[in-house]
């Protein structure tokens, strides 16, 4: 027995076991998220359930679970219940119902059962009764109705998109210009008592803009007029619903679809998720703004954290006289990495937003006050806060890389008549590059997943515009933004309809993992290329 312990085998088993456990946990997490996330886009069949009391339910079965029977005697048969997504929130009040399996008399999958993804009120389940054009009935019944729907839907969707385009692009531009002129007028008013000719000219411009706005408003009204086709759906429970076609995102009959059609639908829904705008308080639609915000924030943060961390590490290791003070600084830097992120968030609010942002507003944007420009949360301040949060990671990694460069390398360069700076620039910096990138990878991974400090420095539930757009100066660092991590929190735990939002939580989590993975892979590829270039045996 003593020999067994001495042999060291138990330690090998222990360490191997620890590794295996970690791997299993990570793999389990990824698999769970992937299954729940990716499965969501697959159109599951619509079931029609006839219950013992004669009631009918139409919807998609979401999950099945055992009904707990506490205190039941041994041998009691197990009972199960299923959760059905019946949709039609506006008709029934709730999207989901629980049904005990024992109560189901009949379960079938009618091929003409229709699922409509609406722009508002969530999914609609039912059967087509008729398609109307204004008051006139165009088609009746499931068959004809379906064909009529296929004919009219693309046109209506196009009209809807046109309306959206005019609202966002054209009228958005007018609003932007109006706001600028208003600020200009206010600025002139601040400068002197009256710059009347200038103000008059600006007023004139405002007038033309208003005229243009009225034009657009008129064409909008016209477009809305033209879109008057609607669909009447009969839903389970003897309900009926008339729905304008413009309200339909997608309508399909999963029970009548083949594998190919389902796959196409899957890809279309997946694409909508990645590249679309959110709907229904983020519980439906896409996450593009959040994805964009996350990536942009991480990139801005990297731009700040890399030079700052690297320069600090160089000073600490190459120039500072090693002694108790430098050791203290080093310990402080290491400890900084352990400070809770919310503390950094509070600091960001106090220092960046109120102090620096407030000063910027007073100096450069006095005309907009009391509406803050930089004096409120924004992507720049969030990125800077995260840069502070992650700078110790970069410093530590760079310092370790510097320590690993053999002293002989520096001496050789100095002995050839190079100055200290030339040595640092030509020998030390290239050799330490892989370590710098390692630090940056860790920093980016940390920043992409951080939520708490962002919530108070500029992340919002729904940002009206992306931080990059077509209006001068194109990059708007003062804007609030959306973030995948916060999106998960918001959709999963702040949404009124948690059951409906759950798949979004998984898909968003999966996307966040993917973003981190892609960012890391890019940096790792870059690092391995650099390593090949500066092959150092010791790093």
């Amino acid at each position, binding site marked *: 027995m003593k020999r067994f312990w001495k042999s060291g085998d138990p330690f090998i088993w222990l360490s191997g076991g620890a590794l295996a456990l970690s791997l299993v946990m990570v793999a389990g997490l990824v698999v769970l998220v992937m299954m729940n996330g990716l499965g969501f886009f697959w159109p599951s069949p619509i079931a029609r359930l006839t219950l013992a009391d004669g009631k009918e339910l139409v919807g998609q079965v979401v999950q099945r679970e055992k009904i707990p029977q506490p205190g039941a005697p041994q041998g009691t048969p197990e009972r199960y219940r299923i959760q059905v997504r019946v949709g039609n929130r506006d008709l029934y009040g709730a999207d989901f119902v629980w049904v005990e399996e024992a109560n189901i008399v009949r379960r079938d999958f009618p091929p003409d059962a229709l699922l409509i993804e609406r722009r508002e009120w969530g999914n609609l389940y039912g059967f087509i009764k008729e398609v109307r054009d204004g008051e006139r009935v165009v088609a009746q019944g499931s068959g004809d109705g379906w064909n009529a729907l296929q004919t009219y839907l693309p046109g209506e969707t196009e009209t809807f998109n046109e309306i959206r385009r005019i609202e966002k692009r054209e009228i958005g531009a007018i609003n932007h210009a109006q706001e600028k002129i208003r600020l200009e007028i206010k600025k002139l008013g601040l400068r002197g008592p009256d710059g009347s000719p200038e103000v008059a000219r600006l007023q004139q411009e405002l007038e033309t803009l208003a005229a243009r706005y009225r034009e657009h408003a008129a064409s909008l009204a016209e477009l809305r007029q033209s879109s008057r086709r609607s669909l009447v759906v009969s839903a389970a429970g003897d309900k009926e619903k008339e729905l304008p076609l413009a309200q339909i995102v997608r309508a399909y009959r999963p029970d009548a679809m083949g594998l190919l059609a389902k796959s196409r639908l899957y890809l279309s829904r997946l694409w909508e998720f990645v590249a679309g705008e959110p709907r229904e308080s983020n519980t439906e639609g896409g996450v593009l703004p959040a994805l964009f915000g996350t990536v942009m924030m991480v990139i801005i943060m990297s731009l700040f954290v890399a030079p700052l961390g690297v320069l600090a590490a160089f000073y600490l290791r190459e120039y500072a006289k090693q002694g108790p003070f430098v050791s203290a600084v080093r310990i402080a830097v290491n400890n900084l990495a352990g400070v809770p992120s919310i503390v950094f968030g509070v600091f960001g609010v106090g220092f960046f937003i109120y102090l620096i942002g407030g000063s910027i507003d007073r100096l450069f944007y006095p005309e907009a006050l009391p509406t803050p420009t930089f004096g409120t949360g924004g992507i720049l301040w969030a990125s800077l806060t995260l840069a502070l949060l992650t700078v110790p990671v970069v410093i530590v990694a760079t310092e370790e890389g510097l320590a690993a460069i053999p002293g002989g390398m520096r*001496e050789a360069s100095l002995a050839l008549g190079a100055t200290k700076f030339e040595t640092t620039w030509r020998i030390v910096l290239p*050799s330490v590059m892989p370590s710098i990138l390692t630090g940056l990878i860790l920093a980016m991974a940390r920043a992409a997943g951080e939520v708490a400090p962002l919530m108070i420095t500029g992340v919002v539930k729904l940002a009206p515009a992306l931080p990059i757009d077509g209006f001068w100066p194109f990059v708007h660092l003062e804007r609030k933004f959306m973030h995948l991590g916060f999106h998960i929190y918001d959709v999963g735990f702040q949404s009124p309809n948690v059951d409906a939002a759950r798949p979004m939580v998984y898909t968003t989590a999966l996307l966040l993992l993917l973003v981190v993975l892609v960012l890391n892979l890019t940096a790792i590829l870059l690092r391995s290329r650099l390593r090949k270039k500066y092959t150092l045996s010791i790093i």
Partner: protein
Amino acid sequence: MVTRAEAALAERRGDLSIKGSENGQKALAPAPSDLRMQDQTVGATTIMEPMIEIRKLSLKYGEKLALQDISLDIPKHQVTAFIGPSGCGKSTLLRCLNRLNDLIDGVQIGGTIRIGGIDINDLDLEITELRKRVGMVFQKSNPFPKTIYENAAYGPRIQGIQSRAALDEIVEKSLRQAALWDEVHDRLHESALSLSGGQQQRLCIARAIAVEPDVLLMDEPCSALDPIATAKIEELIAKLKKQYTIVMVTHNMQQAARVSDYTAFLYLGTLVEYDLTKQIFVNPSKKQTEDYITGRFG
């Protein structure tokens, strides 16, 4: 073959000496004879044309005295070896010659060292200029993690030579001088770390002579090499002394006997004996030297 490269280097050096003499400062030219210190006698012989003159050199690391009152003249175009037991100060002495000890905190240096008549501890002398004149090869081969070509071209680049043609010439010439050209000429743009230990050390020699220094310092250049690689380096040293003044530190008594013309024996930071190598190994004048050479201590 070497015209352009030599011209480039000579031009830089010319600039320098002109500038130096205008300012009335240290031009890197022979010192006036009144500045020459009294000739140092080495055993029975007098060194007529010393390249390096060391006078009353002492060095302290903090409180620890590492070198004590050392005076010796190192002749031009000869190989001088420093021998002695570990910790006797021979490497420290060597590193005084290109002021590499300056990098260490808390070093105090007393006495004077003149190389080519110029006091190297003069505050007006740019330390980088000194190091361009005094090349060094280290105990552990330390090529930069760059290509073979870039290693050899590093010194000239630092001096500001950018012309590709001139660099090509310098690289080829120095690699030929270091007897490495034939082995690497077809893979100049591969990593220097792919070379064998002996090749790496010869590359370091090539890198040091690419800037055409006057003096070449070698700190145990063969201690990490196998006998065949050592033999190659020794051969190389014998060839190089025609152009350079070589000062080497070695632990290997046979090597000192084989390679060097003059040998200095150091012990506990003092110079015990300095003479022609033949003299030292055949007929040492001090008992301590004899004991060390014959292996009775150290």
